[in-house]
């Protein structure tokens, strides 16, 4: 198939599947908290709705920066789709995508001129603590498979079995990243309740629409990468079931945990990351993992 058509199809799938999964996430959280919750399709309708709303731009913003950052956010996650589901390229590109996402969170908050956005921008710097476990997980995958290429990691797993069974602690580390990026997460210090909508607070109309579009794609890409590098070659049904199960688990966790303060969040992430990293190194070098 034509590459451009493949990219377009994958982006549409990522947006729709990500939106429906985030809708399911809200539904699970609501049911755990004994509320009916919104329909599963609500997140998708919500995203589309913003494209038709009036786009107001506050006086305090740095205009070019304020508008441009939204498109960079969308572009970053489209690159994520291209590097992951379309091309099966290097994990380092996806790590780069995640690192730029952090910078975009930070700049999106600071460009608005709102105190809520600025506070979120400061917290985005702290939440870079999530990147260390992510990078450590990628390093461990490299130590096991000898490659960073997603296609080759899939081939490795088709021969040796899923990495989740050989280096489970690395999978736990990556799973922590997914929990961190899920809505209402205990580690979501850039968008917690004290900040209203965090770095998105001052973005209205189609700008918010683009942000929600990017978040849906981000959720899909992160689940796709996790399932691909830890659960081996999967077919479409496998991905669907895996994504629904992970969304259920994160929904349960987020519905039953409070949102941590920034210092608790960072320390918890670093501690879990360090335990899992050294634990996996110990497993590899003592020969527990062949």
């Amino acid at each position, binding site marked *: 198939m034509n590459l451009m058509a493949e990219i377009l199809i994958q982006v549409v799938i990522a947006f729709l599947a990500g939106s429906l999964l985030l809708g399911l996430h809200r539904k699970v959280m609501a049911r755990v908290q004994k509320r*009916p919750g919104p329909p*599963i399709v609500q997140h998708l*309708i919500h995203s589309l709705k913003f494209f038709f709303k009036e786009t107001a731009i506050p006086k305090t913003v740095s205009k070019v920066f304020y508008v441009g950052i939204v498109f960079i956010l969308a572009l970053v996650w489209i690159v994520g789709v291209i590097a992951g589901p379309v091309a099966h390229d290097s994990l380092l590109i996806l790590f780069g995508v995640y690192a730029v996402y952090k910078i975009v969170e930070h700049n999106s908050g600071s460009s608005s001129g709102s105190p809520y956005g600025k506070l979120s921008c400061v917290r985005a710097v702290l939440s870079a603590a999530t990147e260390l476990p992510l990078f450590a997980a990628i390093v461990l995958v490299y130590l096991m498979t000898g490659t960073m290429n997603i296609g080759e990691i899939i081939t490795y797993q088709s021969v040796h079995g899923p990495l989740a069974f050989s280096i489970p602690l690395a999978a736990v580390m990556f799973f922590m990243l997914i929990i961190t990026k899920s809505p209402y997460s205990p580690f979501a210090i850039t968008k917690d309740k004290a900040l209203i909508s965090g770095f998105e607070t001052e973005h209205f109309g189609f700008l918010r629409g683009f942000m929600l579009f990017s978040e849906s794609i981000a959720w899909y890409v992160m689940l796709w990468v996790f399932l691909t590098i830890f659960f081996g070659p999967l077919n479409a049904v496998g991905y669907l079931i895996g994504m629904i199960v992970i969304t259920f688990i994160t929904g349960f966790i987020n519905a039953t945990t409070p949102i941590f303060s920034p210092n608790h969040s960072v320390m918890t992430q670093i501690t879990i990351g360090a335990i899992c990293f050294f634990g996996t190194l110990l497993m590899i070098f003592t020969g527990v993992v062949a």
Partner: protein
Amino acid sequence: MLDYMIYILAFAIGSILGLLYSYKQHGEPFVADTDFNMVMAAVAIFGWCLAFDSGNVILAAIGFLLAGFVMGERPGYGRKETAVGLIIAIILYFLLKWTV
């Protein structure tokens, strides 16, 4: 991947249509009617069976549209019907797999 995009698009459109239809039928501020809706159950069974067992992209897309229509109903409606439809479609899938 084109077929998966068609399926998910059909499911999303079906869900939105189901939500609109359901709010037209039930405008109450609370869930007023918890009875099992036979018509919706038939639509759900037909939809999920087409989606899982037809083996044809167009028919499966129509199936996902119908399944999404029932599943996407207002919260509190269409849950039991969806569950029945899914169970019957999955049983049929395994029966077809083992017997054909």
